[in-house]
C-alpha cells in the first residue's frame, strides 16, 4: 500500500505491507533508528513517537499505514537548527539517561505532555511517564529533566530586561 507520511517535517512516500509496524517502518524504511523496540506488548514505550504534534503513540502498536497523511515527530526531529530541544538539553544536564535505550521514548512522551501541560508538577510528570519503562535511572532524574525543560520552554521568552543603569 502506498502511503505519504511527514516525518520530522520531511515528506516520504513509501510502499508498505499493511502489517508493517510503524516502529519498523521508521527504523528500516526511513532509517530513523532512534525509535527503539523493547517489548512486544505495548508495555515499555521505547518506541513512542508523536502524531500531529501532541499525541504520543507507541509505534510498535500502530501500523505504518495508519500514519498515512499524518505528521510524525521522532527523537531525530527534536533538535532544530543544530540546537538541542530543551528536553534533550535537560535530559543531558540532569543525567536523565544511562543506557539511552528508553530515552527517545521518554523524550517523545514528555514532548507530547508539554504540548498539553505547560507547567506540570512532579506528580503529573510521574503520571504522564508511567507508560514508559526505564531500567537504569529510577526515573528521578528524568522527572527532574522534564521539570527543567518545562521551565525552560515556557519561561517568558522576552521577559523585559532591567534597564541598564547609566553610570
Amino acid at each position, binding site marked *: 500500500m502506498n502511503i505519504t507520511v511527514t516525518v520530522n517535517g520531511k515528506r516520504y512516500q513509501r510502499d508498505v505491507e499493511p502489517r508493517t509496524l510503524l516502529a519498523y517502518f521508521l527504523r528500516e524504511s526511513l532509517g530513523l533508528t532512534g525509535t527503539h523496540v523493547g517489548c512486544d506488548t505495548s*508495555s515499555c514505550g*521505547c518506541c513512542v513517537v508523536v502524531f500531529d504534534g501532541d499525541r504520543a503513540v507507541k509505534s510498535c502498536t500502530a501500523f505504518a499505514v495508519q500514519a498515512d497523511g499524518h505528521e510524525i515527530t521522532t527523537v531525530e526531529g527534536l533538535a532544530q537548527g543544530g540546537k*538541542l530541544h530543551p528536553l534533550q538539553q535537560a535530559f543531558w544536564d540532569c543525567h536523565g539517561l*544511562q543506557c*539511552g*535505550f528508553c530515552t*527517545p521514548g521518554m523524550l517523545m512522551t514528555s514532548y507530547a505532555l508539554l504540548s498539553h501541560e505547560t507547567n506540570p508538577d512532579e506528580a503529573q510528570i510521574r503520571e504522564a511517564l*508511567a507508560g514508559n519503562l526505564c*531500567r537504569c535511572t529510577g526515573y528521578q532524574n528524568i522527572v527532574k529533566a522534564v521539570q527543567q525543560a518545562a521551565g525552560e520552554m515556557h519561561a517568558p521568552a522576552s521577559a523585559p530586561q532591567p534597564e541598564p543603569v547609566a553610570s
Partner: protein
Amino acid sequence: MSTTIEPEAEKHAMGVRMKRKEDPRFIQGRGRYLDDIVLPGMLYLALVHSPYPHAKIVKIDKSSALAVDGVVAVLTGEDLAAHGLAWIPTFHGYDKQMVLCVGKALYQYQEVAGVIATSREAAVDGAELVDVEYDPLDPVVDPFAAREDKIILRDDRENKTNHIYHWEVGKRAETDAALAASDVHVKERIVFQRCHPAPLEPCGAIADMNPATGRLTLYMTSQAPHAHRTVVSLVTGIPEDKIHVVSPDIGGGFGNKVPVYAGYVVAAAASVVLGIPVKWVETRTENLTCTGFARDYHMDVEIGASKDGAVTALKVTTVADHGAFDAAADPTKYPAGLFGIVTGSYDFANAFTELDAYFTNKAPGGIAYRCSFRVTEASFAIERGMELLARKLNMDPAELRLKNFVKKEQFPYPSPLGFVYDSGDYHMTLRKALDMIGYDDLRKEQAEKRARGELMGIGISTFTEAVGAGPSKHFDIMGIKMFDSAEIRVHPTGSAILRAGTKSQGQGHETTWAQIAAEELGLDPQNIMVEEGDTDTAPYGLGTYASRSTPTAGAAIAMASRKIRERARKIAAHLLEAAEDDVEWVDYKFRVKGVPENTVTMQEVAFAAYTNPAPNTEPGLEATFYYDPPNLTFPYGAYIAVVDVDRETGFVKVRRFLAIDDCGTVINPMVVEGQIHGGLTEGFAIAFMQEIRYDENGNNLNTNFTEYLVPTSLETPHWETSNTITPSPHHPIGAKGVGESPNVGSPAAFVNAVMDALAPLGVTHVDMPLTREKIWRACRQAATA
C-alpha cells in the same frame, strides 16, 4: 531531602559532576545499538520454541516452513550437530548446554529450530510452520523434588542425578557447636526468588562471515566481547584472529548479556554456512524465557547470639535451582560465586555455609543480575537474618547492627569465610543514615501509629559487598584470569584515545574512564575519547559485570596513565632542561623541584613526544596496562526504608528510602547517584513485584512485560541518597565500584521494613516479591490466629 555527593577535595577531573560524554548521541536518537546495524543482503533469524518443559523431540518437519516465501533455511539441533555445534560449554565450564534441542526439550521455550529468511516477518511466518512432534515427559519444576532423583533430566550426563554440585566453606563443626551453645537462636527458610535482569534492549547478534577473507564479524549485545571471542574460537575452531567481536551501544545489561545464547550461535552457524550476514534480535518473550535468569536460592539461615545480642555463629544451607543446564555465571573456582560474603558487615566468630545445586525443567542461568556473583543472595540472607534476630531479642535492629559490626580498626578484616575486607567504617555510615533519616523520631511516630492500629515499618540494611573479580590467583573463567586492561594513546595535540577491556551498558565509562585518565594526566577529560567493545582494537579484558569495571579496568586506566606520566617525565626533563630526578608532577604539571614557575603541561609534553622527543627515547606517548587486582574491593552501605502498610489491601507505600553508600573514592558523583537510583529501583522491583514463576506444569508465567513487572515512574519511590568515603587501600585511586550496591542492599531494607510494619501482628517472614496478596494474607492470618 537529598544530599549530593561532593568531592572531598578540589580535583581536576576526579570527583567532578561532569555531564556525560556519551549522552549527545543518545538524546538525539543517534546511538548505535545492535538492531540499528544493517548490513547489505542481511538475512533474519527467528527461533522456534518448545511449548513443553520436558519432552522428547520425535520429529521435526521443516517442509511447510521452507515453502514460505522468503525462507532460506531451517536449522535444527541435528543440523548443528553436523558442525559440532549442538552443544556449547557453559560460562564457567562445568557443564555444557544445547544450542538447539537435541533429542529432548528440557525447559519450556527452549529453542528447537531456527528459521532464516529474507525479512523479519518471513522468518516469523516460517517459524510458525515448523512442525515439531513432541512426546511429553513429566517435568521437574521444584528443586526439592529434583533432589529426589525420581526423574532424571540430564541423561546426557555421566552421573544419573539431578544434583549438580555441593559447595561449602567455613567450619561446620565449630559453627554447629556455637549455634547449639548460643543463648538465642533464629532460623528461617529465606527464598530469593527467580528473577530476570530484563534490560530494555533485548539481546541480539549479527553474524557476518566474509567468505573472501574467512573472517567472522560478530556484532553482539555483549558485556564481555573478548571472552566471547575466545569462547567462539574454542567452540568453532575458527582461529581467534579470524573472529572480530563488536559490541555496539548496549541498552542495559545487568548481567543478562554475559552468557552466550542460542540465537548468537545459530546466527553465526547460519552465516558461516550461507556466507551471508544473519541478524537475530530476540523478542521480549525470548528474553524472559530463554536467557539468563538470576537468584532462585532457597536459603536456610541460622544465627546464634548471646542474650545481650552479640552474634556468635552463622550457618546458611542453600538449595539452588539452576534450571536445565548449569549455566550459572560464576568464576570457575567459585560455583556459588561470592556467596561467602554472607557474614556481611558483622564479626562472626564462627560461620559455615553450604550449597547444593540441582537441575530442574526451567531455563538455565543463575547469572549475576546487577550483582557480584551471588552477593545479592548472601546480603539478603544475612540482613534478613539480623532483622529476625533483633526481633527475637526484642532489640532495636540498628542497635543490634552497631553492636556487631566489624570495627574500623579491624580492617583489613579476615572474614570467617575467607575474604579479607579492605576497608570500611560501618559505624560511621549507619550513624549518618540514622541521623539523616531522623531514626528516633520515626520510631516515635511508629509507636504512636501502632497505638492507633496503623502499620508502619522501618527497615535497615547494612550490607557489605565483595566486588571487582578479581585477583588472578583466585578468579578465572575457564582458565582466563579475571584481570582487566587499558590502553591510552596521547595524541600530539594533547587529546587522547583510551581503550579498555570493559564494556559500558549505560554505566557511563566514556565519561568516567576519561575522568580517571584526565586526573592522572592533567588532560581535559572532554578530549579523551573512550572506546570499548571492539576486540580488534581494545586490549583484552573480561568485560563489565559484577561491579568489576572500576576495581579492575578503572585501576588499569590509572596505572596506564601513570606509566605515561613516567615516560612523560623524561620528555618533560628534556623540555625543562633538567635532570629527570629533579622533575616533579605537581598540580597537574611537570615542574623543576625548587623552581615552581618552571613548568610544562602534559599537552606540551605530548606535542614534544611526536615533534621533539628526547634523545635516545622512543617517540610517541602511549601505554597499556593489564591490572591484576591484589584483592577484591568491599563497598558497603546503610539503607533505611520507611513504609506504611494498608492492611485491607496489602498495599505497601514506601514513604521514604535513604541510601548511604560507601564506594570509596568517587569518580563522578552524578554518575554514582544515577547508579544508585537505578539499582534501588531494581531492588524495589524485586522486593515487591518481580518474579519468574513456573506453575506446576512447568509453564513460565512471566513471559513478557505484562507479567514480568517493571515498576513505572508512578510506583517508584523518591530516593534520598548520600555517601561516606572510605577509600580502598589497595586500589590505585581508592575506588571500589558502586553499580550494584543498591540492588544488593535494598531488597532486605524493603522486606525488613514491611516485616517491621507487620510485627504487631506477629508476622516474621514473607518471601519476596511482597505482593499485595501475600501481605493481605499475612494480615488476615494474623487476625484470625
